[in-house]
């Protein structure tokens, strides 16, 4: 029986030793490994969650940036469009202004040209008229143009009456300087005498007369004294001619042809030499 008890105690001790051994070499390491693995899994899960959160955050950031970028881009595009519109408007305005300037310049040039042309026409017409008249008169009446002009001037002087005559008479009376007779040509002595006597008789004054030759004078003969003057002029002829030439030029310009210096004097029946008193601004001495 003692041996039986010994075996029981020995087996109990064996069992307790086995408990300790297995606790030391089996349960603890296995449980520890399981815990470690679970901790690792938990850590990895947490890391994955953190990464997901971070990715979400980055995605949100990116989206925000994208939106901001889109807005900025839209604003820039709008600004650029506005600026382009403004620049276009400015360029158009500048071009319009330049065009206006050019047109004005061209119009000025055209006007100058017309003026020059009409002056040239007048000059040449005068020359031609005198030449024709001179020749015609010489051919028909054996009279020089100068003689005839002087005669006409004298006739007109003598024919002056009333309102046309009195101011001039007064001017001739009060003037201390000699009255001036200007002609476009040299007057022969006979005509000078005739004009002098006509003045003296017509205005009943005894004044000295000074004769001058002025080739540029359009009117044939001109008497001036103390700011007043009387002239026999072919200005009307010329005016009519100028008008006709102007119409012709206008038509030419309309037909887009370059302005032609062609002279086509057209005299009308109404155009006739007139002796008229022209009042110029009194400037003390003429």
């Amino acid at each position, binding site marked *: 029986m*003692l*041996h*039986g008890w*010994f*075996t*029981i*105690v*020995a*087996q*109990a001790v*064996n*069992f*307790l*030793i*086995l*408990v*300790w*051994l*297995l*606790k030391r*070499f*089996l*349960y603890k*390491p*296995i*449980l*520890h*490994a*399981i815990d*470690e*693995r679970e901790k*690792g899994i938990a850590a990895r899960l947490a890391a994955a969650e953190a990464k997901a959160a971070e990715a979400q955050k980055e995605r949100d950031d990116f989206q925000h940036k994208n939106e901001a970028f889109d807005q900025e881009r839209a604003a820039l595009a709008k600004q650029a469009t506005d600026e382009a519109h403004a620049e276009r408007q400015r360029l158009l305005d500048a071009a319009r202004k330049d065009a206006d300037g050019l047109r004005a310049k061209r119009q000025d040039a055209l006007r100058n040209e017309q003026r020059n042309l009409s002056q040239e026409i007048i000059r040449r017409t005068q020359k031609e008229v005198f030449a024709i008249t001179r020749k015609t008169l010489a051919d028909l009446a054996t009279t020089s143009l100068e003689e005839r002009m002087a005669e006409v001037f004298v006739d007109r002087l003598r024919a002056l009456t009333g309102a046309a005559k009195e101011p001039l008479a007064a001017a001739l009376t009060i003037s201390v300087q000699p009255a001036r007779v200007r002609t476009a040509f040299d007057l022969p002595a006979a005509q000078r005498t005739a004009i002098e006597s006509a003045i003296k008789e017509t205005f009943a004054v005894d004044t000295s007369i000074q004769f001058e030759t002025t080739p540029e004078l359009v009117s044939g003969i001109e008497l001036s004294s103390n700011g007043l003057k009387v002239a026999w002029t072919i200005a009307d002829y010329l005016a009519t001619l100028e008008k006709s030439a102007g119409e012709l030029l206008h038509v030419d310009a309309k037909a887009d042809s370059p302005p032609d210096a062609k002279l086509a004097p057209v005299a009308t029946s109404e155009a006739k030499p007139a002796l008229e008193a022209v009042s110029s601004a009194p400037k003390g001495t003429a």
Partner: protein
Amino acid sequence: MHLSPDELVIWRYGFVVLNSTIVTTWALMLVMTVGAMLVTRKLLTEGPISRWQGFLEIVVTTIQEQIKEVGLHQPEKYLSFIGTLFLFIAVSNLCTILPWYEAPTGSLSTTAALALCVFVAVPYFGIAEQGLGGYLRSYLKPTFIMLPFNIISELSRTLALAIRLFGNMMSGTMIIAILLTITPLVFPIIMNLLGLLTGMVQAYIFSILATVYIAAATRTRED
């Protein structure tokens, strides 16, 4: 022909006897410890683990689950004791397929020793959990009249534990031995297989009963 491996004495000095039961137990202890050391020497905490580690993890976690299911909420405290009970009985029973092997659990000395361990462990865990007063008061439940019956129950269930395991294991060995003398080879093999099953069931029953007793002793008053 002997009923118990206790009868096979290997060495004797005075009252110290080294019989087959003790020696076989030592061998089993050695195998289990060395096996556990070999497997747990290189445990992996991440990545694919070795098959043996997986097997041992399954065993340990299953035992833990069983302890928890019985009602012990901190299975780590009881795992060493109950787990070793189960593993020792299971291994010693499974080894009956080896020739010339005699299970130590087929010896009444071993089963009595294990039952004694449970008999001591129950008040040990009970006092550890509830304190001495609390544990002793559990003998007076539901009334003090029940005290003798509780004490008798304590002793008888220990005896029952020892006898049940011994009877089952011894009978298995005996049946195979008897059948070998009267029947052809095939039938004892079937009985041997049945013996393996019985051994596993007994290991389970023994450890579960121990767990139930410990759980009853550690159950707090409000339960």
